[in-house]
């Protein structure tokens, strides 16, 4: 499984860079166009969720991609101090989209990380 890491400032102007990097990687691994679109949307929504819900942005977001022939697993971690609460995940439009478009989705509130899997 190939591993790729992207550490990027937690600023909204970098969202298009994150989407471009994610779609380039998914394309390289042979995902179909609609799957690439889903992967791009989900990663973007996870980053947007952290920007909306954890104000501190002096530290970066870390995006870890694990790409195999049949799937991609992506973990986004907010490296800033602070806490995310379970209630913030409920009724959030970003989470609704992430859940719908990913094959497996889980989160670790202590580490402020969200992981999803997309299977070909």
């Amino acid at each position: 499984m190939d591993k790729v890491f992207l550490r990027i400032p937690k600023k909204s102007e970098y969202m298009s860079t994150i989407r471009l990097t994610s779609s380039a990687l998914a394309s390289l691994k042979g995902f179909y166009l609609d799957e690439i679109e889903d992967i791009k949307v989900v990663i973007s929504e996870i980053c947007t969720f952290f920007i909306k819900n954890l104000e501190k942005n002096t530290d970066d977001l870390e995006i870890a991609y694990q790409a195999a022939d049949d799937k991609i697993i992506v973990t986004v971690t907010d490296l800033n101090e602070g806490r995310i609460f379970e209630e913030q995940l409920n009724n959030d439009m970003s989470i609704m989209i992430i859940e719908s478009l990913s094959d497996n989705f889980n989160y670790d509130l202590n580490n402020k990380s969200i992981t999803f899997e997309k299977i070909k």
Partner: protein
Amino acid sequence: MSLEIESMLQGKDIVVKPIGEVDIYTSPQLKTNVFALIEDNKKDIIIDGESLVYIDSTGLGVLMSIYKNMKERNLNFKIVNLKPNIYKLFDITGLNKVFDIRE
């Protein structure tokens, strides 16, 4: 890719055409632009999604706030020409049942 917004008067409506991506970075631009059009013209608004290549949850939130603003003024708000990958997000979030969306 950033966002450009074109607007034109078409009959009794104003057609707003977002060109590019509406995300957490660019969505405030769309909100400011359309709110100013509502305030200045007090006409029905059509969002033409022909050149909209991406929208995220914050962009959907902005469309919701435009819809509410117009409803309060008894104005009509319509969305047309959405690409299938964009319409999918309206479907997931249930906003396809809130907005007047046409092909």
